[in-house]
């Protein structure tokens, strides 16, 4: 059989491809069709207890574990007037620098209270460097029904050990802040402030 000219032979690839299954994913139009695997290391989240108090105690073990030096934590004391987490200590400042983060997950392994976990959110892009440093308000888990935004007191009659033992399953009316609570307002993301979350 005589060989076809090279120019025609080349088109063979083109024609053959026209009948193969398309591998291109339509992103972002059909992003939902291809969710990441459940254990994908995406954006971090700072979790809450069932009553809305933060799980983070500001221990800095995540920052210590971080090989990329992407995490900054500054702790402070909980007080009777402003309690953000059960126990003595909470994380006042919590920043993750996503320009540095390598998504290795050592931070969530280090976290002693499971405050820090990773979501599957991978859409982390922006047009400036400052916005890629996520603050605590950007990282905190949304408030679920039954949660009260901190600062507020612990469930009456419990200690932090009861929280760790899983005995606190939701907020009680006594935890509602009395009067105006400007402190938490400043720390929440807009969606929470406006009651959308």
């Amino acid at each position, binding site marked *: 059989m005589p060989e076809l000219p090279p120019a025609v032979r080349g088109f063979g690839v083109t024609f053959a491809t026209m009948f193969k299954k398309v591998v291109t994913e339509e992103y972002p139009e059909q992003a939902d069709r291809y969710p990441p695997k459940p254990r994908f290391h995406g954006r971090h989240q700072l979790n809450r207890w069932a009553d809305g108090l933060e799980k983070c105690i*500001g221990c*800095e073990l995540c920052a210590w574990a971080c090989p990329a030096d992407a995490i900054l934590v500054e702790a402070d004391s909980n007080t009777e007037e402003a309690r953000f987490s059960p126990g*003595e200590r909470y994380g006042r400042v919590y920043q993750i620098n996503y320009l540095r983060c390598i998504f290795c997950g050592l931070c969530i392994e280090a976290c002693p209270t499971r405050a820090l976990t990773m979501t599957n959110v991978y859409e982390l892009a922006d047009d400036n460097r400052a916005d890629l440093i996520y603050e605590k308000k950007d990282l905190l888990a949304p408030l679920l029904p039954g949660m009260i935004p901190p600062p507020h007191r612990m469930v009456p009659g419990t200690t932090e050990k009861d929280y760790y033992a899983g005995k606190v399953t939701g907020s009680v009316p006594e935890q509602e802040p009395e009067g105006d609570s400007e402190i938490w307002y400043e720390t929440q993301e807009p969606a929470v402030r406006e009651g959308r979350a």
Partner: protein
Amino acid sequence: MTIAPQSPTEVAPTDLVTVSVDGIEVRVPKGTLVIRVAELMGIEIPRFCDHPLLDPVAACRACLIEIEGQPKPQPACAIAVTDGMVVRTQRTSPMADTAQEGVMEFLLLNHPLDCPVCDKGGECPLQNQAMTAGRGTSRFEEEKRTFEKPINVSAQILLDRERCVSCARCTRFADQIAGDPMLELLERGAKQQVGTAEDEPFDSYFSGNTIQICPVGALTSSLYRFRARPFDLVSTPTTCEHCASGCSLRTDVRRGVITRRLAWDDPEVNEEWNCDKGRFAFVYTYEGRIASPLVRENGELRPASWPEALDVAARGLAAARGRAGVLTGGRLTREDAYAYAKFARVAMGTGDIDFRARVASDEEAQFLASSVAGMPLGPTYADLDRAPVVLLVGLEPEDESPIIFLRLRRAAQKKGVRIVSLSPVRTRGMDKMDAQWWACQPGGEAVALRQIAENSADTLAALRQPGAVILVGERMAGVPGALSAAAELASSTGARLGWVPRRAGERGALDAGALAGLLPGGRPADDPRAREEVAAVWGVEASSLPTGGRVGQSLVDAILGDTSRAEREEERHIDALLVAGVEVADHERAEDLRRALSDVPFLVALSTHHNDVTEVADVVFPVAVVAEKAGSFTDWEGRTKPFSAAIHGAQSVADGRVLAMIADSMDVTFGAGDVASLRAEMDRLGMWTGARPAAPSVAPAASDASGTVALATWRLLLDAGALQEGEPHLAATARPTEALMSSETARSLGLGQAGSVTVSTDHGSLELPLRIADVVDGTVWVPMTSEGSRVLAIGASHGTRVRVTGGTA
């Protein structure tokens, strides 16, 4: 860890014994503890309660080892070696290893393991040794013992009893080192806990040391609580800027802000201790700082650029050349004080410079020139240890130089050094040092010293023993004749004389020449050779250097044009003043100085914070605090302790650099003004070896006015000082502000046992609670600069006659 210095001559070869540790034979001095022998050999035995500066107690049992011939494991920290002893540590003895693991398991039974919220996490001996000497698991399944956490043992110190391993380091420190045995182990068994008596907090001046030596996180400070982790901190060895004791500190900085300071190890000075002021008073470094240069325009200070401010300052100072004065304050580093001393003479053409922002006198200036400035090291802390007798004249070491207090207390208790204190008040500090109290009216110190020299044969004999030391305190400057008498007593007996100023920069400023009549290195300003030496290094004509100069009072008088007081001086007006870190209220005649500062036509202030001087200054330059610059302090011994900047990359500029920039703007050759070049110049100059002026011989003032009461006063360690601002927890541990009097005096004045008194002069009055104490009759003691007791503000000082009336006005 400090290892007590031992000179080779102290150990005769016959006192060596042979011991075997893990099969290795060594010869060590008899009586050495097994744990120290192992340490010297590089064998690490776990320990919690052991501390080389505290007596052995064997409380924690972590250091158990096997000694051949003993049926049970023995604590290495409490057993002294004997000849032929065979020791096996955990490295070679299964018995020791098992014992250590068992002890560690016991210690962790009730430990809460709350490392994530514990300040000690990351630098915790319990964490580390649980890893190296403990088992991986615990067999304890029951409920742990719990306590309320944390509780305050003082406003500053917090105690978490759950974490405590009952090593008794804190209680032993409080008892043995500080002499404030307010911490004690209470209860027994599993309930054993550290505690204080009810309503009696651990308000020791040295309480912070317990936090540092606590081997777990049981003791923490309110100030450092939850502020940082060890890996956040950049640590720099520094020298304390608070007093003239010269402590080595470690300053820990997180992101440009000091988070804590620790006592650092200097066996010759502070060993491993420091006072709470040095440890906790650093909030001033970041609060209320001046941000940019300020220039006065239309009566108001407004921010200005550096070039503009430099230009204004240079023009103003150049216009007043030869008619200018410099007040530096006692807080400058040695290098910066030298820069002022040089700037005054080279750029301002004046010798009118004084570093003493406190009660000062011409007699003191003469005393410093003759006996202190540019003198070599000594007497030293080690001399205090070895002295047969130490005479304190107008010095309360616990308040004015705490490390001298710790040294003297140890010297008295361990070595039997006799301490005698000439003071109007018998203080608790004296009792803690086992000091003998020689009562003396305030202001009567000079007479008392002369009486010793004339009448007291046994005291003279004691002072004639080799190594005897006389320490004079700063308040003797206000007692006419006292420094003369002290110097005379020292020279007639051969005792060594030490001058103990309160502020860290005073000795350095003196050596740097920041006092009229003295050029750097203690050179007399009127000595031709001294002038030649200095002129050669400064690159100026010797004839251009001013000779004398006015100090203290006469400087203020010159500004005010008060010729009646300044009649001895030729009529020279002061038209410009350069003022560094000076608190007007510290000055003996504060009101006069305040008036002088607003009267003087041109005033330049170099300051870290706003104060009374910057309020009236024409130009203000912001300068670096000590933590932001390199430099050195000279402590009371004459020991120079250099340090580098603890806060790296700070935007602020040291005084020396600012002066160099002003000099540049004035077209004066000054040099770069940085630490390296200033230090190099000082090293080239060296100390003066030639003849010194004679010691002053001022006669004691005759005591006046019977019917009134003499005022005794000094500054407490924790008071209303500017550098202690912003730290309420520290302030809460200060001594109460109260007036002290003897019961006899109180009775003769018709005052009751309790209640308050009013101490008044023609210029004002103080109202204080009264406490009956051991005070010499006819005298009332009040704190000098505490909240509610500003003695200088009512025109009084140590030795002033005051009126005391009972009750509230």
